[in-house]
């Protein structure tokens, strides 16, 4: 009965650029704004065969029918260290299908995801905003597992946060409570207590913190020493970090944290600061603990260093998403409060199988910086008070998106409602 399908899934090459443009044009003609995300800056990485030793690289998978592309997804290849051993894995970003505008192509995305999963069994889709999203339901039907990545926030300026947070403003009782506490002075009191709590938990001795341009061999030493503390983590040595957080990307501050007495590296933490576009945080200056690594006993010091830095630069609220218990506990220790997380990970069956059945996502070390979780922090964000400058130069920061309801939920024709993030060059 088996016959050759009209669809073929393959890696895109440089010769596909015109096909991609036609694909985008058909989506546009159908009234869709989604586009295959690529940029000239990414072409070499996206389309050419990469050096297998590259710590991170992009590939574009496409479903073609005849001479036309009918679906595409960007794969962000990295290395995952599973109990100390490296394995290649990929984040799936921006799946998009022509089924959005023509249902006869609805199977194009099915072919794409199934064939991609066959070729690259360890796949993770990170940052999905809702398990009710079409993308989450779609991959769920294909046997993918989901988990939420816990969200934490640190209100630096209590009164400002209470008045600006959209989450509170949308809920009448919370809004009234917030107003009452602001007017009564309770917010100031709470803020004072919160600051006192933070000061009380200042690490001793106070670590040395340096804002560094890039990651050197010291980061390799940290990675090797701390790897045993993390059952599953992305590669976070200097080569990977300098690719993930390049020194010419102004969004990131890379904080190297050392013991003042011995000079020994405790680890590092990456922070971002920006007024975010979108409604979630109003006009608050939002800081984020984007990523970090170190032996788990040093994590509280790393979190402290990140918070100190962001407070010093004017953050009014600090947010983070962590999955590993050491980072969750380290955040709580320094006054972070748990918030409602709508930052989900979806894992292919083989990726989910890395975790013992009785364990949870805490086996993974997932941070906001993983996959494309920092797209909301646009280039130019480090200018205090300045408005972020949208960029498409790196293909990773195409469009501003909401903090933790990011539309990777794209997909599935009706279903593949593609990524709002996916603007091409």
């Amino acid at each position, binding site marked *: 009965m088996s*016959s*050759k399908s009209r669809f073929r899934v393959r890696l895109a090459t440089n010769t596909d650029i015109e096909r991609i443009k036609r694909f985008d044009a058909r989506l546009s003609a159908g009234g869709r704004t989604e586009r295959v995300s690529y940029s000239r800056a990414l072409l070499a990485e996206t389309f050419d065969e990469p050096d297998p030793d590259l710590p991170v690289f992009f590939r574009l998978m496409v479903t073609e029918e005849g001479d036309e592309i009918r679906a595409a997804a960007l794969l962000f290849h990295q290395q995952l260290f599973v109990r100390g051993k490296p394995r290649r894995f990929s984040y799936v970003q921006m799946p998009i299908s022509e*089924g959005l505008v023509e249902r006869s192509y609805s199977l194009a995305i*099915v072919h794409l995801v199934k064939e991609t999963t066959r070729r690259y069994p360890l796949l993770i889709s990170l940052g999905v905003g809702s398990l009710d999203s079409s993308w989450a339901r779609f991959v769920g039907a294909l046997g993918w597992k989901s988990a939420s990545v816990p969200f934490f926030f640190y209100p630096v300026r209590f009164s400002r946060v209470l008045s600006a947070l959209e989450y509170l403003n949308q809920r009448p009782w919370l809004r009234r409570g917030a107003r009452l506490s602001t007017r009564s002075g309770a917010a100031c009191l709470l803020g004072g207590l919160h600051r006192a709590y933070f000061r009380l938990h200042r690490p001793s001795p106070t670590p040395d913190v340096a804002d560094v341009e890039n990651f050197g061999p010291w980061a390799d030493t940290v990675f090797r020493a701390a790897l045993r503390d993390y059952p599953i983590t992305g590669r976070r040595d200097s080569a990977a970090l300098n690719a993930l957080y390049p020194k010419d990307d102004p969004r990131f501050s890379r904080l190297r944290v050392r013991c003042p007495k011995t000079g020994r590296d405790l680890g590092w933490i990456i922070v971002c600061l920006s007024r975010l576009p979108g409604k979630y945080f109003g006009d608050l200056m939002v800081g984020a603990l984007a990523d970090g690594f170190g032996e788990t006993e040093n994590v509280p010091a790393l979190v402290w260093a990140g918070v100190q830095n962001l407070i010093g630069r004017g953050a009014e609220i600090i947010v983070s998403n962590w999955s590993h218990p050491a980072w969750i506990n380290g955040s709580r220790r320094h006054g972070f409060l748990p918030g409602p997380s709508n930052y989900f990970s979806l894992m292919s069956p083989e990726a989910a199988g890395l975790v013992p059945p009785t364990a949870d996502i805490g086996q993974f070390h997932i941070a906001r910086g993983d996959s494309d979780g920092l797209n909301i922090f646009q280039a130019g964000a480090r200018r205090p008070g300045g408005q972020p400058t949208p960029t498409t130069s790196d293909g990773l920061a195409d469009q501003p998106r909401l903090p933790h309801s990011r539309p990777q939920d794209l997909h599935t*024709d009706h279903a593949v409602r593609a990524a709002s993030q996916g603007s091409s060059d």
Partner: protein
Amino acid sequence: MPPTHDRLVKCFRSVFPVVAADEVPRASLANTPTWDSLASVNLIALIEDEFALDIPLDDYEHMNSFENIYVYVKQREGG
């Protein structure tokens, strides 16, 4: 066990509850607005379970109407 036709109707009704049972045999991707990729995946998974089949990706092309699927399942059943 109910005949293949009835079991297939049951699968369709699970995925497309708004399609009346007597309309199911005429259902196709072209005339069923909710038949998208998610529906396709769900429908195929249900059919695989119901008929203990493993449907290869290349055969998904047949999964575009009740009639085609019925023929496909009957052939796979050896009927």
